[in-house]
């Protein structure tokens, strides 16, 4: 089970509505994943700054944290709390200093994602409720991906929820399960990569991060996963400017895509796409197995 969604705006006018559409899409796949939900939105960047999405315990005082951080970092620091998460914006020269300061000042916080554009939120609970907690409906962005989880391999925890982000502005949602994740995790660890969980999807995310770090294009990295990942998967991947979809060669896990002049959308089921503007006229198709589909805002 599990449901995944993705939306990539080709028309800049759609960016203001991106969060609203993504929220509807997530809620429509509650039946497929009632345990937890998460999403990443590629929101407008802050000039010369990097966003760190933080997750803390309920009721955490993020404003006090920002005040404390100002003493440790050069340049402006701002924070925007949303429920259990907050987006911390620091000068791009201060990212390492910020991470070090966070480890000292707030060891109870988890950095769930970093990037120029990407903000990432995930929590246990029904998808519509998770979207409401973080006010997804009012977020803007060029593209976004989301996941509704029905846990089968590991416990219902926030750490087990998707998306997984293991590199700057990179995130991944996954429907399926990987069978060689332990082997691959060991091999990636030997190459110096670290893991926050025992989750199979995190291994796929780190695998792609490693390939991108080696200089491969997103398309080439995903094609590589066809050889190196064993198991069932439909992936939707976001990068700072890119949006991609890949299904394994067996393609057990369902997937539907739609494209118009204004957007490209992905849903585990067509039901997730029915409220998108102009869906009646969209080209609707089922992505082919073992085929990378990719869009880029720079193109």
């Amino acid at each position, binding site marked *: 089970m599990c449901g995944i969604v993705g939306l990539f705006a080709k028309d800049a006018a759609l960016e203001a509505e991106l969060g609203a559409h993504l929220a509807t899409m997530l809620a429509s796949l509650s039946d497929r994943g009632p345990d937890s939900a998460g999403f990443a939105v590629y929101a407008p960047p802050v000039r010369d700054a990097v966003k760190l999405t933080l997750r803390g315990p309920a009721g955490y005082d993020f404003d006090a944290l920002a005040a404390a951080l100002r003493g440790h970092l050069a340049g402006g620091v701002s924070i925007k709390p949303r429920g259990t998460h907050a987006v911390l914006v620091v000068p791009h020269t201060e990212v390492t200093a910020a991470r070090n300061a966070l480890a000292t000042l707030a060891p109870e916080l988890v950095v769930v994602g970093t990037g120029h554009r990407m903000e990432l939120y995930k929590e246990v609970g029904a998808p519509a409720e998770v979207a409401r907690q973080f006010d997804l409906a009012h977020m803007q962005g060029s593209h976004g991906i989301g996941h509704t989880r029905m846990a089968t391999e590991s416990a219902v925890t926030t750490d087990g929820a998707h998306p997984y982000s293991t590199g700057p502005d990179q995130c991944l949602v996954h429907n399926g399960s990987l069978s060689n994740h332990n082997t691959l995790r060991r091999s990636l660890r030997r190459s110096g990569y670290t893991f926050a969980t025992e989750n199979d999807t995190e291994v796929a995310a780190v695998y792609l991060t490693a390939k991108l770090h080696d200089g491969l294009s997103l398309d080439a990295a995903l094609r590589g996963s066809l050889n190196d990942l064993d198991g069932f998967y439909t992936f939707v991947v976001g990068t700072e400017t890119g949006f991609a979809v890949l299904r394994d060669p067996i393609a057990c896990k*369902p997937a539907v895509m739609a494209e118009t002049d204004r957007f490209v959308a992905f849903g585990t089921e*067509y039901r997730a796409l*029915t409220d998108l503007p102009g869906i*009646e006229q969209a080209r609707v198709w*089922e992505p082919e197995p073992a085929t990378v589909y990719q869009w880029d805002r720079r193109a």
Partner: protein
Amino acid sequence: MTQRAFARVIDLEHVAVRELNQALHDLAPDSNATHWQVLNPRGRHALAVGLDAEVTVEIEGHAGYYCAGMNKRASVIVHGNVGVGAAENMMSGFVHVHGDASQAAGATARGGMLLIDGNAAARCGISLKGGDIVVKGSVGHMSAFMAQAGTLVVLGDAGDSLGDSIYEAHLYIRGTVAGLGADCIEKPLADRDRAELHAKLQQAGLAGQVDVGAFRRYGSARQLYHFHVDHADAY
């Protein structure tokens, strides 16, 4: 556009799928309500399933999983795409999908005809048990997997592993076949095969539009499902 008159119009924005299906199941044998229209399907699952009546149901848009599953006698026409398992385990009747079909279309169908104007994804006609499937486009990989009886007619191409572990279903493919599955082989297109193919195309309303001679026939090599005592050591 032809004027269509409907005895009943069900708008799924206001009526639950269970109510639609129950109303169709409750049709009396002598009912005059033989032509139904379903509005706003919006990818909902299990539309028009388990029908057993001489009724035509037209679905105006995309349907979700298991549309027209277990169909008996009824005609279900989908003016859009269908999700996983359309017309699965159909017993008789006619299901016509104007768009594309997702995986496992016509799975385990025992009778009736499933006509798909577009493409069908993977595992079309998996474990077919006597139904007929006509796909005007192409079918995905593992189609007709373990198909036991019935026919699969494809005007386009077939994906990899066609007819894997097939029993006695008849496969007719006009385009290319990416690869044959275990124990599936090409067979000569004899006169009786041409006659069978022509009958199925006629039933699908395609007689005269398609040259039966352009198809190639595939079926079981019968090496896999028979126990050969000479090969006992290999088991």
